[in-house]
């Protein structure tokens, strides 16, 4: 490679195409600078500053959602309307995680500003991850996310439970990265070999790889590589049989981090999976579709059945998240036959964001010093102490359960319609059985909050319920609860966009 060629390549780097990621990174650095410069007694304000900065970036992004770029950095990144939607998604989730952190970090003797710093970096990396169309870019941004999450999961480093969760996440995360990487290497090696037709010199690129795979539809090594890559991604989204880490890690991690794992990390995994299934591995649908079909059915059944027995709400929400991953997989499986399924996945992710953060918000407000111990019994009589929190909780849980008029219902409906059009009738039956089971445990939780005449389990929790959320968090929770109803009744441009595809 001669230097003039490199210069040409460098000229193709369009830095303005990734301004949201860059500004998030700059904001993250600015937080650290402010922490060193400002006196200690106004450090609490830095957290608010971080949230304000993110809201500003979100507003700037929403003002001009159209992106003038298609490919940037010589094909490493691809900008699209779906990518823009996911940028909004990750900004919303990082704003909510920052709000939750602001409401819960003060209960612990840990550094506050660094937490926000890492949340911002992880969110920026997720934005790059969902836009990457090259395996090198994919791996590097995925690892930026994962290493950041290792730190966040074990953030309460004086709590043995949190550290244990951190270690479990570390081992499982590294294992999945190892599988993913070996899969990528196998695909790269096979696609470059001179003896096969359609040899590609740059097989890290999605479209090059797809071209090679189309020329060799039944290559054993390529199939092994695809299976390894899929299992690596399945770890991230928590699909069966790679879901074993979820209950423990969700329980032990700080509640804001659990929310980040449940919503943003899972969504990133699904968008990566969509890119792989729809583009890079499209010629191998004969292999990908059966694997994912099995995973979807097993994930839905396992998540719902295991959640039935849970009394700890963090484990419960983790296992219910496993079953939601199964529902989204149902739509992903339909993608090769029904293009509209892509829209169903995005809509479901947004519905899941709204519903989950409503529930996590209430959990954060009610959690005490040790937030790994939160039982369903703690919620009994919540509606009498705080009608507002109980209302938000009911909206969130109703939406997760998929009851009309909440947005979760529409999300499930779009997914089921996509699966029906694609002809996955057996899988659809499993999914409907899963929905029926899930209503049981979601309603157990709502019943504890509304229809339980016993007084609250402890005066501590009653006091926290009466104190309620801080002003900013209360506004955000009210907005989430309202949007879970509004988007359930009227999907507007979002619904039109989904059904047009």
């Amino acid at each position, binding site marked *: *490679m001669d230097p003039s060629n490199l210069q040409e390549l460098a000229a193709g780097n369009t830095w303005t195409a990734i301004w949201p990621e860059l500004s998030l990174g700059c904001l993250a650095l600015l937080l650290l600078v402010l922490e060193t410069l400002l006196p200690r007694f106004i450090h609490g304000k830095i957290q608010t500053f971080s949230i304000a900065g993110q809201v500003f970036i979100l507003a700037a992004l929403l003002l001009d959602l159209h992106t003038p770029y298609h490919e940037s950095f010589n094909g490493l990144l691809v900008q699209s309307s779906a990518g823009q939607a996911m940028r909004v998604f990750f900004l919303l989730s990082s704003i909510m995680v920052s709000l939750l952190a602001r409401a819960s970090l003060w209960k612990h003797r840990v550094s506050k500003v660094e937490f926000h710093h890492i949340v911002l970096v992880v969110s920026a990396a997720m934005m790059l991850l969902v836009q990457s169309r090259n*395996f*090198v870019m994919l*791996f*590097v941004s995925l*690892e930026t996310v*994962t*290493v950041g999450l*290792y*730190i966040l999961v*074990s953030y309460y*480093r*004086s*709590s*043995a*439970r949190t*550290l*244990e*969760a*951190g*270690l*479990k996440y*570390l*081992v499982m995360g*590294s*294992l999945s*990265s*190892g*599988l993913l*990487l*070996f899969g*990528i*290497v*196998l695909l*790269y*090696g096979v696609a*470059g*070999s*001179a003896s096969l037709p359609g040899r590609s*010199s*740059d*097989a*890290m690129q999605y479209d090059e790889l797809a071209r090679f795979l189309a020329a060799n539809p039944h290559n054993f090594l390529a199939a092994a590589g695809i299976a390894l890559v899929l299992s690596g991604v399945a770890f991230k989204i928590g699909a069966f049989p790679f879901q074993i880490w979820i*209950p*423990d890690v969700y*329980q*032990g991690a700080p509640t804001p981090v659990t929310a980040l794992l449940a919503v943003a990390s899972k969504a990133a995994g699904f968008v990566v999976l969509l890119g792989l299934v729809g583009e890079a591995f499209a010629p191998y649908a004969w292999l990908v579709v059966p694997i994912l079909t099995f995973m979807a059915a097993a994930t839905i059944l396992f998540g719902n059945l295991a959640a039935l027995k849970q009394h*700890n709400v963090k*484990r419960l929400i983790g296992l219910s998240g496993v079953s939601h991953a199964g529902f989204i997989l149902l739509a992903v499986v339909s993608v090769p036959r029904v293009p509209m399924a892509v829209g169903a996945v995005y809509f479901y992710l947004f519905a899941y964001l709204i519903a989950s953060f409503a529930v996590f918000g209430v959990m954060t407000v009610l959690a005490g010093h040790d937030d*790994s111990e939160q039982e369903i019994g703690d919620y009994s009589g919540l509606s009498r102490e705080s009608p507002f929190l109980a209302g938000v909780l009911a909206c969130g849980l109703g939406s997760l359960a998929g009851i009309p008029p909440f947005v979760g219902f529409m999300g499930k409906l779009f997914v089921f319609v996509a699966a029906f059009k694609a002809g996955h009738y057996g899988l659809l039956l499993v999914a409907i059985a899963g929905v029926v089971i899930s209503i049981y445990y979601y309603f157990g939780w709502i019943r504890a909050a509304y229809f339980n005449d016993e007084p609250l389990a402890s005066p501590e929790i009653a006091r926290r319920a009466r104190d309620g959320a801080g002003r900013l968090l209360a506004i955000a929770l009210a907005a989430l609860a309202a949007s879970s109803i509004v988007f359930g009744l009227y999907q507007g441009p979002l619904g039109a966009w989904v059904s047009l595809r």
Partner: protein
Amino acid sequence: MSPSLDSYVLLSAALFAIGFLGVLVRRNTLVIYMCLELMLVASTLALVAFSRFNGTEAGDVFVFFILTVAAAEVAVGLAIIVALFRARQTVQVDELDLLKK
């Protein structure tokens, strides 16, 4: 006689399998962590071999990224293991059962 591409790929597959089985079988956290690193190194070896024998250059660049990522992962991972040892005085997987119910 220089080794062929096949022998490199077989070696790296063997290393990967040893690492993977080690993660599943071993009970000491530090040994598990070494096995995880072995998996990354196996991928790197295969990558270099493929890149050299196929004459494609993207693999060589990727190796540098993998090394960087592995270094970051080790730094964070060892910190977590040390903090856990301070809190629990053990790094045996079987004894880390606070989260099981």
